[in-house]
C-alpha cells in the first residue's frame, strides 16, 4: 500500500512532465497534421537553456533565493525555447506546406538530429549534473521503515503544471487566438477566407507548444538534476505516445495520456522490471496505434482524396 501511494505520487509527477510535452505534439498535429518529431529535442534544448540561466543566476549574479531563481529561469527558458521553435517552424516546416507527404516528417527528423547534435557540439557530450535545488520532503506516512514522502519539488511540478494548464485552457477556449487556432484546426482554407492569419496562428501554436515544453524542461532539470544532449529523444517519444494514447489532436487527451504514461512507467518499474520500462512505453505506442488509432479522447480520422 505504501509503495503504491509512493509510486502514484512519482507517476503523477512524471506524468505532468510528459503531459506538458505532449500538448506541443498534439497542438501541432491538430493544426497542420504533422508529427513534430523535433519537439522532444526542443524540450532538451530548454533544459540546457534553463541550466545555463540557473548557473548564471546563482554563481555569477549570486541570487540565493532558489524560488526567485527558478521563476526567472522559467521565464527565460520559455522565451528562448519559444524563439527556437518559432525559428524552426519558419525555416524547416513552413516552406514545406503543400509539398509531398513525407517531406515535413523527414524535415522534422533532420531538425531533431540537428538540434541534438548542435547541443552536443556546443555543450559537450557529457552529462551535466545540476546542483540539487529543492531537497525538502514532507513525510506523509511512516509505517515502520517505509516512508511515503512527497518532495517539495514534486509539489512544485504538479502545482505549476496545473496552473499552466488552466491558463492554457483559458487561452484556447476563451481568447480570440484560441478561437483562431481551433478554426485553423477545423478548416485552414476556410479560416483564411474568413480573415484569420493562418501563418501567424500556426507560428503561435509552435510558440505555445515550445513554451509548455520549456516548463517541462525546467521541471525535468529540477527533478532529475541532470541535463544531457540525448535526453530529448526518449522523453519525446514517450510524450508522443501520451499524445497518441489520449487521442492526437485532443488537448485534454494529451494531459490524460501524459498522466497515464507516467503512471504506467512508474508502476511498471516498481512492480515488473526497470530495464524494460522503455519497452513498455514503446509497446503502448504500437498497441494504441494498431488497435485504437483514435486514442482515448480523439476523433476517428477519415482519409480523403
Amino acid at each position, binding site marked *: 500500500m505504501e509503495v503504491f501511494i509512493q509510486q502514484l505520487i512519482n507517476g503523477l509527477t512524471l506524468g505532468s512532465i510528459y503531459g506538458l510535452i505532449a500538448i506541443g505534439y498534439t497542438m501541432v498535429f491538430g493544426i497542420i497534421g*504533422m*508529427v513534430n*518529431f523535433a519537439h522532444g529535442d526542443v524540450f532538451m*534544448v530548454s533544459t*540546457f*537553456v534553463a*541550466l*545555463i*540561466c540557473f*548557473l*548564471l543566476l546563482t*554563481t555569477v549574479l549570486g541570487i540565493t533565493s532558489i524560488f526567485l531563481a527558478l521563476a526567472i529561469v522559467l521565464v527565460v527558458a520559455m522565451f*528562448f525555447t519559444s*524563439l*527556437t521553435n518559432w*525559428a524552426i517552424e519558419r*525555416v*524547416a516546416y513552413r*516552406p*514545406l506546406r503543400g*509539398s509531398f*507527404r513525407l*517531406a*515535413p*516528417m*523527414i*524535415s522534422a*527528423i*533532420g*531538425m531533431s*538530429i*540537428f538540434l*541534438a*547534435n*548542435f*547541443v552536443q*557540439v*556546443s*555543450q*559537450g557530450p*557529457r552529462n*551535466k*549534473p*545540476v*546542483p540539487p535545488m529543492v531537497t525538502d520532503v514532507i513525510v506523509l506516512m511512516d509505517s515502520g521503515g517505509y516512508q511515503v514522502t512527497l518532495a517539495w519539488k514534486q509539489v512544485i511540478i504538479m502545482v505549476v503544471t496545473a496552473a499552466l494548464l488552466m491558463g492554457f485552457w483559458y487561452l484556447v477556449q476563451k481568447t480570440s487566438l484560441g478561437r483562431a487556432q481551433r478554426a485553423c484546426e477545423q478548416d485552414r482554407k476556410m479560416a483564411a477566407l474568413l480573415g484569420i492569419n493562418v501563418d501567424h496562428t500556426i507560428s503561435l501554436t509552435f510558440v505555445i507548444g515550445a513554451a509548455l515544453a520549456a516548463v517541462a524542461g525546467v521541471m525535468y532539470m529540477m527533478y532529475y538534476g541532470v*541535463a544531457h544532449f540525448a535526453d530529448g*529523444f526518449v522523453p519525446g*517519444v514517450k510524450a508522443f505516445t501520451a499524445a497518441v494514447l489520449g487521442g492526437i489532436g485532443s488537448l485534454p487527451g494529451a494531459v490524460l495520456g501524459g498522466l497515464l504514461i507516467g503512471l504506467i512507467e512508474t508502476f511498471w518499474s516498481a512492480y515488473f522490471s526497470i*530495464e524494460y520500462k*522503455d*519497452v513498455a512505453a*514503446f*509497446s503502448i*505506442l*504500437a498497441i494504441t*496505434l*494498431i488497435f485504437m*488509432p483514435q486514442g482515448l479522447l480523439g476523433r476517428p*480520422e477519415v*482519409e480523403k482524396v
Partner: protein
Amino acid sequence: MAVQLADTAPARAHTPLMAHAFKDAFLAGLVALGLFGPLIGFETIVIDGALGLTYRPMTLAVMVGIIFVGRLILNLTVWSPNRRPRISTGPTVFDRMGTTVGPAVKPALLGLAIFFPLLAVLGLGGLSESRYLIDLGILILTYVMLGWGLNIVVGLAGLLDLGYVAFYAVGAYTYALLATSAPINDFFAGLLGETFWANWAFWICLPMAGLFAGVWGMILGFPVLRLRGDYLAIVTLAFGEIIRLVLINWVDFTGGGAGIASIPRATFFGIPFNASEDGFAALFGIPFDPMHRIIFLYFVILALAMLTAFVTVRLRKLPVGRAWEALREDEIACRSLGINTTNVKLSAFATGAMFGGFAGCFFAVRAGFVSPESFTFDISAMILAIVVLGGMGSQIGVAVAAAVMMGGMEMLRNLGFLTQVFGNDFDPSLYRMLLFGFAMVAIMVWKPRGLVSTRDPTIFLKERKAVSGDHVKEGHG
C-alpha cells in the same frame, strides 16, 4: 508610359531597398543572437565536480555575424525585388550534363569499385599501406548497401522506416549467435544434438540472416502497415528501440551490453586466411599477408551491394515493383485500382529488411564483435539521411550520397589545415550528424526529390508529365 515606369521604378526604389535589406538582416541577426546566445555564448563545464560556466563571446559574434552578412547578401542579390526571375524552359545545364555523361557514370563507378583495391595497393605502394583506404571502402560499401536496402522501403514504396537498424541488428546477431555456439546451444538445450548448433559457416549464416531479418520485417510490418505515413515512422522507430533494449537486457542469450566477442572470421569458402599449411596464402602459393582477408571482405560486400542493386532494378520491372512506385505516388488511387496495399507494403518492408539482414551479417563477420551500441537510432538516421540526400528511389544517387557522406567525413579528419583553423581538438566526425540533420532539412526545403539525382516513376501513361514531381503535391500533376 507604363514601360517607362517599369524601367525607372527600380532606380527610385534603391534607397528603401537598402534600408529594408539592412533592417531585415538586422532582425535576422537578432533572432540568431537569441537562438545561439544561450547555447553558444555559454558553455557549461564541470569544474571540481560542480558545474560552472565559460564564455565564448567570439564564437557567438562570428556566428551571428555570418547570419547577418549572409542575410544581407541574400537580400541584395537573390531575394532582391529588382532581380528578374530567370524563367528557364529547357533542360538546365545539370540536366544536359546528366543526359550526356549519365550513361557512362554507372559503368565507371562500378569499374572504380571493382578495381579500387588494386588501385589502392598500387597507389600506396603496398598491401599493408592500403589497409586504411580499403577499410574505408568497406565502410562506404556497407552504407551503400544499407542505403539501397532502405531505398526499397522509403524510396520505392514511400514508407518512412525509422527503425531500419533493427534489421541490421537482427542480421548481425544471427551470424554472431550461429557462428559462436555457446549461447544458442544453451538456448535450444541440446535440441537436434549437441553439435548441430556449433559454429555455422558464414556462407550458411548469410542467407539465414537475410531470412530472419525478412521474417522480422514481416512480423513487425504486418500490424503497423495500415498506419499512415508519420505514424508508421514513429512505430518503426519504437520497434527499433525495443529490439535494441531487448538485446541489452536479455543477457543470457545476447550477452547484454557487453555484446558477443570473438566471432569467427571470414574464410575463403572454407579456407582460413592464416599463415598455416592449409591457409589461403599457402594454398595459392603466395606469401601470407593479413590484408588478403580485408580485400576478400571488400569483394564480399561489393558483391552483396551489387546483388541488392540488381534485385532492386529487376523488381522495379515486375508488377510488385510497379505497385511500390504507384503506392508511393498515391495510395488512395492504388486502393481504388484493386491493389492490396497491405501486401504490397509488406513485400517492400520485408525485402528491405532482408538486405538489412545481409548487411548486418557482413558487419558481424567483419568486426568480429557485435554489441547493442552499434545499433542505435543514429545509424537509422544516418541511412535515412543517405537515402534522402541521394534522392529517394534513385540507385546511383544513394551510392554517391553514401560515398560522399561517409568517405568525405573520413577524409575531412585528415585535413591538416582544418585543425589549424579550428584548434587542435577539432574532430570533423563530431559534426557529421549535425551536417546530416541540416542537410536533410535543406534538401526537403530546396530539392525534396533529392540532391544527387531524381527518380520519376519507371512507367507512366502516354507521356512524362511536364511538371516535375518537385512542384506538385503527392498524387497530383
